[in-house]
């Protein structure tokens, strides 16, 4: 077997696709998991976005009899209260996804602000911000919401839940970004920029931050998964506002109406699958982001073909 043959087997040297894209984005799109994850996420976001157009019924009102099985009239059947499950699923997605993304965007933003500032400034500023971070780390988010929920009539609304996650969830990421900033700050290109008289904001935003972009994106994706799951979990146990339509409250009603025991699986499964779907999409995106951050993960590709090549030459193969 020749090197040429191996090269063909490993599918190397083919014209690279999508060369007009910047390199990290290209890796992301060409990675199968990243592409599938993005498509899955795009699908669920679009469906939720166009809920007013797609939903056949008003999710808040009765539109049929109690626990009607799926039919052409009600694609996913009705709840015990006679509300259309399909419409609820679409509208619920709007709230759940919005809460997840907004909470994650907010907490990432705070994390960048606190982490990068304390890592770059050092000294007293760093001590104060690290103290704040440590305090936030020991405040548990979930119990805090349970306590807060008792202050609101009719449970905590999705907005409140999202805000609490944003405020309690940034501390870990701030620590990671602080450490990373401290590492990059000692690099000579930062010293060079400082000696040049570059202003601090430009050093932080242009010189330091782009070097940890993939780390930040990874943290943001994980944060979103956490926020969506935690919100659904809280509402499922009844902490949230029961009159809101979200995937979590749908699960809550399904469970308290004993839908499964009554044989009405359609009141539980759709929102459960939707949550899993979103989680899976985001996890796959995260895998792909990992690949960009750490190219060594891709080195083991095609090891079987390489071993075949080695065996044909009588050289011991890789494990």
């Amino acid at each position, binding site marked *: 077997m020749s090197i040429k043959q191996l090269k063909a087997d490993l599918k190397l040297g083919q014209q690279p696709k999508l060369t007009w894209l910047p390199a990290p984005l290209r890796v992301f799109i060409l990675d199968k998991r990243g592409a599938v994850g993005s498509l899955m996420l795009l699908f669920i976001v679009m469906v939720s976005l166009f809920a007013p157009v797609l939903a056949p019924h008003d999710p808040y009102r009765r539109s049929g009899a109690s626990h009607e099985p799926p039919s052409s009239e009600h694609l996913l059947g009705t709840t015990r209260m006679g509300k259309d499950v399909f419409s609820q699923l679409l509208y619920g997605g709007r709230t759940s996804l919005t809460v997840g993304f907004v909470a994650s965007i907010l907490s990432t933003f705070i994390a960048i602000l606190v982490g990068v500032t304390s890592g770059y400034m050092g000294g007293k500023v760093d001590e104060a911000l690290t103290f704040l971070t440590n305090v936030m780390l020991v405040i548990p988010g979930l119990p805090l919401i349970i306590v807060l929920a008792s202050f609101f009539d009719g449970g905590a609304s999705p907005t409140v839940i999202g805000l609490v996650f944003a405020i309690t969830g940034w501390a870990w990421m701030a620590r990671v970004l602080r450490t990373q900033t401290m590492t990059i700050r000692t690099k000579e290109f930062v010293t060079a920029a400082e000696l040049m008289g570059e202003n601090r904001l430009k050093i932080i935003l242009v010189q330091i931050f782009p070097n940890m972009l993939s780390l930040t994106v990874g943290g943001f994706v994980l944060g979103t998964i956490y926020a969506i799951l935690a919100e659904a979990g809280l509402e499922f146990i009844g902490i949230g506002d029961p009159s809101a339509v979200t995937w979590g409250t749908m699960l809550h009603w399904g469970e308290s109406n004993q839908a499964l025991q009554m044989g009405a699986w359609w009141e539980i499964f759709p929102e459960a699958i939707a949550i899993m779907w979103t989680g899976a999409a985001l996890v796959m995106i995260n895998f792909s982001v990992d690949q960009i951050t750490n190219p060594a993960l891709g080195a083991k590709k095609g090891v079987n073909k390489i071993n075949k090549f080695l065996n044909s*030459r009588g050289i*011991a193969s890789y494990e």
Partner: protein
Amino acid sequence: MNSPLINADEKQKSASKQYQKQAILEVKDLSIHYIGANDITQAVKKVSFSIHPGEVLGLAGESGCGKSTIAFAIARLTSLPGLISDGEILFKGDDVLRYSEKQLRCYRWACTSLVFQSAMDSLNPVISIKEQICDTILAHKKVSLAEAVIRARELMMMVDLDPDRLDEFPHQFSGGMRQRIGIALAMALEPELIIMDEPTTALDVVVQRDIIEKIFELKEKLGFAVLFISHDLSMMAEFADRIGVMKDGVLLEIANSAEVWDKPKHAYTKQLGEAFLTLDAATGEKLTPISDEERLATPLLELKGVHKTFKTKKGWFGVKNFNALNDVSFKLRKGRALALVGESGSGKSTCARILSRVYKPSAGVLNYKGVCSSKLQSKQAVSDYQKAVQMIFQDPFSSLNPTLTIGYHLRRPLELHHEFENEQALQAKIYSLLKQVELLPVEEMAARYPHELSGGQRQRVAIARVLAIQPDIILADEPTSMLDVSLRTGVLDLLQKLKEEENIAFLYITHDMATARYFAEETAILYRGNIVEWGDSQTVANNPQHPYTQLLLDSVPDPKRPIAQRIKEGKNPLREIWDPLGKGCVYSQQCSGVFGECSHMDAPIIEVGKNHFIRQFEYL
């Protein structure tokens, strides 16, 4: 097959008379490929050589030539994306490439072991030396722990380390000592071949001398063979029996070391040998001597009696002072370079940081154009000073931001310190800067990212970035030490051109006396925070007066003095006394320290010749 290889075979035949015994390792037609994202590239092309018992075979070449790849292949440490694609590696007749995992475990370390470049990384920081050595022994030999400890003590003594320090951890040893531990570890199982991958590259010149002499002594005593990999041809010529020269994966020639150094067959070997500035070759013929008027004129930048003390923590509350610089004075003149020569930890970089105002001096003054600049207040004054004094860093891989284009790196300093009528004028200036540092074609270079450039090209970008500001003074912190030898003179010549044409003053920080002599008009030798000798570079190099300078110059590898001869002459006695890593003040070796406050700080300065000064030393 090309002719050099045939020559190499002939050489081997003549050499084999010298080594009657069977070759211990034979590499035959070894090819190694790397699997990249788009292509499979060949890193080693049909390389053949053999190593005989008790022989030192040097493998020389620049970065990326495949020398380390071969070393790893011999130990079968090649891992993906590396791929040994063809050939044989015969260890006493057995093909290593066909060993199973189990056979490999017996072969590795017991038959061939490795010493790596960075002993810091190859020793585990959280495990004591004793455990690391004993683990190695116990993994291969059925002996009791007590026996293994005895062996470990024996090994420590072999490399001149105190066996009672076995229980200590790697960070408690200096760089040179860690490399000795690395060698002890490699000898633990008495292998017949030790592969050394640039074992002295990260070390200072005096320590390097220590290590190679130790390796040579041990080799003579124990009779193992050494495959010594290095980019330093002059050191290899002094140390190795035979040298192989590699370029782009091809073994160009392999012959007795004297032959390779004196009568190289291949044009590239010749080029490599010439690129290496030895002390004798670098006579500084491109430099013009400094006139007396220049000496009397107000210097551009001047340090006067500068001290720098760092406070380090000692215990929970205690503070210990560490004197990094002690009464340092020097002058930088327009269009001239001052070389600051010293080993790591001598305070070279602290000097540069004080000049660039990153650190404030603890005592003494910093004069810029005759005006004291250590306490600049106004924003304008700080900005003016920044504009005047710029720095080039040692590591071109860390001094450019990987996320920004070359164009941006040059654009910012221009925007910050100069005004341009419009975008086109700015763009034109960027291109002219790239042209000045010979990075062509300019449009393409400006659009590239740092990872698309070689080390030498990156250093040129770093120089262009500094030029963009149009400084009066450039502080160059070992600008060539991370570059391949063939690129070094190119970068130095570029700096030389700037020095003459733009009348820039340079502070050239280096550990290499030869390049100091090549590039700088004046040299100052820094030893543990003190300038011990200074004067015109030629005078200092030809007629060193201070024992430390003499030691430094004596330690520089010299192919004309083979190592066997040096060992016969005996160790340089100065080495015992002038230890750059010693604790305390300069005289601590001779001082019992029981007299309270140290009074050694203000040793008088003596003029030993015209413009040639040394700090007095007491021990003689």
